[in-house]
């Protein structure tokens, strides 16, 4: 009994995620899957050793009353090379620099110093760290939201940031919004600064390195709904006064963005929209994923608004942040459900992890997930309400799918085979594994196998391709047999035709000797009279048929003879013509 209890206890004590992992299949149905990520730890102010900020003897001393927890933190950024984690601690008006290994504090910045005078931050909502050629090292970009400015700075020591450039509200007729509250900030390799500004829906505001306003970048399109079309019709017939009272259809501003190693900027839009929910922008600001073709790219939960009976509310998708990992995986964070949706380079869903519960008291469950970052095989999610950072680490299953996807996206299908097989061992419902294995089989010209895999994955397009090759191979391999069959068929048809012409039959029916029954036979009993009548009738009809057949045959023979005669005549005339010619 005790043993049983102990066993059951050990089972319940097993650390699992506070949610059931799932994935979407070919029909966009949610199916159970394995966890690709597991929570390893959560970093709170205590783990960051934020009490050092209150210790006068410490070099990071700020003040006696310095907050020792995060407060409504909105953004973070990882410097891969220096292994630093930067957190914009919004409500505390400060920037934290953490060590990525120990998660302990290395620097705290409450403002920037500009040659002696210090200007403090006010509700900074965005931070971005990048290498800068201009500074010959690290440059920190801060979206200093309530101060209406973006700051480019460099680190002097653990307490001070030195101002390099300040980007303020553009004095340009193109910039029509009254306020300038930058929320997120980004810099490309040429150190142009992009910033997402509150209430600006024409894209992100773009500054040159020196601080000049250069325009807007990568606006969303208007999502065409029935309401939008109706309004366009109304606007066409409305008067000036009516027009003034009408709302205008404007695109939804995007919430956040990230830049990948190749310099492409990805944007994510918070409000549920069919168009442009996640975009990959080229330098001209256009989406290089072709969203026009039937909105094939779907991000976040596919099921649409979901009623949650426990929380007693409807969940609408709200993609709040995204991060492009160094391997090119796209991690999209849904604020509403606390889930991170991971996609590969081709926007194929890799895995889903994280959750939001009504109590938020479990690791891996979020309250206000505000930002997502990746480093190596870890994913960090910043929570503004729980004031912590949840660290997810890739499981063995996750490792296999990531390896497989990396090889798959490079087109090395055969190399990815082993990883896909491992994936299937752990999750037999993982659709991409079958597609990957199918493509590998196709590359190795194992068509039957490829067809089987594609059928399992219900991948009709790839099945079609494989089938084309399989059919070709079949025809090639059985060419002789097929030709022989065709020739035989043609020969059979010709033979039948000829035989019909000559009045022969393949199976000769035994002709009944009509005279024998009609001759002097014993009259049948009375009860068989009807039968005899029938028989006689049948005989008569047979005779009639026979006569008809003979008539037909005679007719045919006659026509054949006639044909022969005409042929002969033609030949004769030809011969005579030839002779005349000579």
């Amino acid at each position: 009994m005790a043993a049983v209890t102990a066993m059951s206890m050990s089972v319940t004590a097993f650390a699992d995620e506070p949610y059931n992992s799932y994935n979407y299949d070919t029909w966009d149905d949610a199916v159970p899957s394995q966890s690709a990520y597991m929570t390893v730890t959560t970093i709170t102010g205590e783990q960051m050793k934020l009490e050092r900020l209150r210790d006068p003897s410490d070099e990071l001393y700020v003040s006696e009353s310095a907050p020792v927890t995060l407060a409504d933190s909105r953004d973070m950024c990882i410097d891969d090379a220096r292994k630093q984690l930067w957190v914009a601690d919004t409500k505390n008006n400060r920037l934290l620099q953490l060590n990525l290994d120990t998660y302990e504090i290395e620097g705290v910045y409450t403002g920037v110093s500009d040659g002696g005078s210090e200007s403090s931050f006010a509700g900074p909502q965005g931070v971005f760290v990048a290498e800068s050629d201009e500074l010959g090292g690290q440059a920190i970009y801060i979206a200093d939201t309530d101060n209406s400015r973006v700051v480019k700075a460099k680190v002097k020591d653990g307490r001070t940031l030195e101002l390099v450039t300040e980007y303020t509200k553009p004095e340009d007729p193109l910039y029509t919004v009254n306020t300038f509250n930058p929320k997120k900030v980004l810099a490309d390799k040429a150190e142009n600064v992009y910033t997402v500004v509150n209430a600006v829906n024409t894209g992100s505001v773009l500054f040159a390195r020196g601080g000049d306003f250069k325009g807007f970048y990568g606006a969303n399109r208007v999502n065409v709904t029935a309401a939008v079309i109706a309004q366009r019709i109304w606007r066409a017939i409305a008067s000036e006064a009516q027009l003034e009272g009408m709302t205008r259809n404007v695109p939804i501003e995007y919430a956040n963005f990230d830049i990948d190693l190749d310099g492409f900027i990805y944007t994510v839009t918070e409000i549920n929209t069919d168009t442009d929910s996640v975009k990959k922008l080229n330098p001209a600001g256009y989406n290089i994923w072709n969203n026009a073709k039937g909105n094939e790219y779907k991000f976040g939960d596919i099921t649409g608004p979901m009623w949650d009976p426990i929380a007693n509310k409807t969940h609408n998708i709200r993609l709040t942040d995204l991060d492009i990992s160094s391997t090119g995986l796209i991690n999209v964070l849904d604020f509403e459900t606390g889930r991170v949706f991971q996609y590969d380079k081709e926007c194929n869903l890799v895995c889903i992890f994280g959750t939001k519960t009504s109590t938020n008291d479990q690791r891996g469950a979020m309250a206000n997930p505000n930002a997502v970052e990746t480093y190596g095989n870890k994913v960090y999610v910043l929570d503004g309400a729980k004031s912590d950072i949840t660290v997810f680490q890739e499981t063995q299953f996750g490792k296999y799918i990531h390896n497989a996807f990396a090889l798959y996206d490079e087109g090395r299908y055969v190399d990815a085979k082993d990883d896909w097989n491992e994936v299937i061992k752990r999750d037999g419902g993982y659709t991409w594994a079958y597609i990957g294995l199918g493509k590998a089989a196709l590359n190795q010209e194992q068509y039957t196998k490829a067809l089987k895999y594609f059928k399992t994955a219900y991948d009709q397009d790839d099945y079609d391709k494989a089938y084309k090759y399989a059919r070709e191979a079949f025809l090639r391999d059985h060419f002789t047999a097929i030709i022989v069959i065709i020739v035989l068929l043609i020969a059979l048809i010709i033979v039948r035709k000829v035989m019909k012409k000559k009045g022969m039959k393949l199976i000769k029916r035994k002709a009944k000797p009509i005279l024998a029954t009609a001759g002097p036979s014993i009259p049948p009993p009375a009860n068989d009279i009807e039968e005899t009548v029938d028989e006689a009738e049948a005989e008569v009809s047979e005779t009639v048929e026979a006569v008809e057949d003979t008539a037909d045959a005679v007719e045919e023979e006659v026509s054949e003879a006639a044909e022969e005669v005409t042929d002969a005549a033609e030949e004769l005339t030809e011969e005579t013509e030839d002779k005349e010619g000579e």
Partner: protein
Amino acid sequence: MYEFTPMGWLKHVIFHPVEGFEDLRWKKQGSMKIALIIVFLLFVVMVADRQLTGFQFNTAYVKVFNVVPLLVQSVVYFFTWVIGNWALCTLFDGEGTLKKICIYSAYALVPYIVCSAISIFISNFIVQEERIWMTAIYYLGLIWSVVLMIQAMKAAHQYSFTKTLVSMFFTLVAMLLILFLAILLLSLFQQVYVFGYSIYTEIAYRIRG
């Protein structure tokens, strides 16, 4: 003039769209048995379309297979058509009897059934680029059947061409009405059932005390 077996008549009707049904009527031919078999085959071919179409063309949701919608789309629609047409055309000087309409309509469906079957068969041997063959055969059957159906109705009721088309259109309206009323009736009976059941439960509770 013509002497055929019942199957011979079917063949004659299909391959002589202009005169076939008039001949059929003139000779008082047409077998109810064959008509019913054709309707059943229509149902079979609809099931086959869902289940046996080549994998690369099959868009059906394979996780669930419900035969009832297919049954409704074939058999129920057919008989609604027959009844609707009969009800309408009896009022508008149509000469067709219920039996005649049923037989003629069923005969007219044969090209559609056969071409669908061929299309389903070849879908197993072609790739998506060659889809046009499938579509062509399917539409050939469909258009052929529509032409036959017009001729069938024309012959059955001895209408002019225009009157036939108008009557067919209103037959579709009649079908909608019949189906609407049928659904209404069904839901009403369901409510009656629920009413009766709740009274039973009430009484049962009271008796048990």
